[in-house]
């Protein structure tokens, strides 16, 4: 925790102070009249993802030796399996992100109390309270479970991506470039009445199939390589089952029944439920690829 945690937490604190000072200066110049609260809202929503992105890379501790990026020999020779190593890194990462986000939330609170529109914020909270009160405890549990599992999945996938990128830099570059093309294409298509609907449908089916295949292949390989301990398998599958039930229940509650969803999108949504399973198998596999080159 001290090796990566302390610098990460200091960075989180520094980011909070910077955000505080930045908004303070902009506000003092009159550029932010009435927008500071919204800006803090944006910062609070986006900062966990920014922290996650930075922290994941930081925690990997990869080093460049003789032209190859790899784990440090010290890390790689500890008597711990790859799943254990991933788990420890994930715990440190999520703890640091949560604490860094709390720094940011504290900075936002201080700013609101001293210079912001405190009454506006409290009024908004009071307005939301009845809505939130309507949600019963089991539903809160469902929301919490879905959020936590998704967040851990995102953290594990980011770490896996960070580990995979040095192994296959060209492939990662190609995927990234493809992603950059798809975004403007989707924006253009949306403005032109979704002319390319068959194209997107085909992609949704392909993605769904790819996810299903990735789940199957990654688990098969991880089990074959002995990266998934049998004792952890049962726990992982139970949590995933609970997550799937919670996610489906939330979907059925939130989305009105009269809304029709294309089959391809439904298939993609269903297959995306397996993402936590992919993360469980892929993270130790990619770490193993670095540790046992």
């Amino acid at each position: 925790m001290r090796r990566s945690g302390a610098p990460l937490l200091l960075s989180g604190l520094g980011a909070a102070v910077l955000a505080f000072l930045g908004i303070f200066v902009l506000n003092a110049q009159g550029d932010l009249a009435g927008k500071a609260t919204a800006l803090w809202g944006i910062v609070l929503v986006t900062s966990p993802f920014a922290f996650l992105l930075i922290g994941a890379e930081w925690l990997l501790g990869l080093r460049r030796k003789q032209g190859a990026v790899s784990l440090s020999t010290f890390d790689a020779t500890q008597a711990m399996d790859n799943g254990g190593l991933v788990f420890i890194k994930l715990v440190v990462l999520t703890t640091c992100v949560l604490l860094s986000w709390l720094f940011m939330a504290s900075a936002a609170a201080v700013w609101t109390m001293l210079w912001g529109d405190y009454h506006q914020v409290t009024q908004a909270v009071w307005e939301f309270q009845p809505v939130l009160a309507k949600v019963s405890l089991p539903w809160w549990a469902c929301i919490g479970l879905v959020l936590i599992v998704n967040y851990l999945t995102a953290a594990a996938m980011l770490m896996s991506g960070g580990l995979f990128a040095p192994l296959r830099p060209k492939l990662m570059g190609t995927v990234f470039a493809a992603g950059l093309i798809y975004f403007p294409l989707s924006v253009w298509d949306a403005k032109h009445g979704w002319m390319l609907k068959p194209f997107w449908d085909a992609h949704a089916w392909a993605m769904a199939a790819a996810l299903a295949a990735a789940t199957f292949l990654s688990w098969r390989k991880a089990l074959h390589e002995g990266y998934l301990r049998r004792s952890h398998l049962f726990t992982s599958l139970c949590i995933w089952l609970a997550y799937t039930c919670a996610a489906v229940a939330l979907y059925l509650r939130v989305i009105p029944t009269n809304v029709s969803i294309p089959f391809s999108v439904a298939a993609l949504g269903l297959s995306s439920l397996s993402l936590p399973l992919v993360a469980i198998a892929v993270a130790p596999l990619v770490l193993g690829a670095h540790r046992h080159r």
Partner: protein
Amino acid sequence: MSQHVIEVTHVSRRFGSTLALDDVRLETPRACVHGLVGVNGAGKTTLIKHILGLLKAKTGTVRVFGMDPVRHPVDVLRRIGYLSEERDLPEWMRIRELMWYTQAYHPNWDPAYADELLKRFGLDPSKKVKDLSKGMRAQVGLIAAVAHRPDLLLLDEPSSGLDAVARRDILNAIVRTVADDERTVLFSSHLLEEVEQLSDYVTMVHEGRVVLEGTLDEFCWQHRRNHAGRRPSTSWRTVVDQATERRACRLVGWPAQTEWAFCNTPPSSVLV
């Protein structure tokens, strides 16, 4: 159960166009000090990395305590003490913290032995690793490697960059570990002097190939035969062709086909 702690069979490894290991076969018997000798870049570290599971055998097999170190890293690494050539220790830790950290992975950790070695090396436990000299890092790494009384101690160029005093201390520590507990040591070195002082069994690696192997006694016996005016025989388990012999002789800096032995004429020359 196999009588060998390490069994490497037909392992080859290529990095780009460089053949780092070429059909290497290595066996380390229990309770012996096995010296791996060769020039820099001969493939010693690559071989040790295969034994640790840091490199996966692309061809052939690697077994340590009868297990594959890639498939069973916990079971294998728990029984190994390793000192890397790079002295790759976490810079931000204090020596004391490093000992605690390492202890967490090894139930057999002997704190009294660790303290004794710290005192013997004159190391201040409150010092940070980043503030240590190269020699001190080697000493700290060695303590972390031996204090859990490992069944197998792997030392990659243990005396690299050390002064004579530190080298002697390290060697003493190794010998003591082995002598006291009858455990196995595999160490790599390019110093013949060191190999001669420590090893029961020697393997010479050159250009990724095992060119010579045998017990130190065999080396001595070979030396005696040489002095009796005979050519060195190739009665080693590994058959060494004459070209390889000549190359190895050139490496050692001795006249070809006359001096193989490390005994009696301790060469201070370094194989670089």
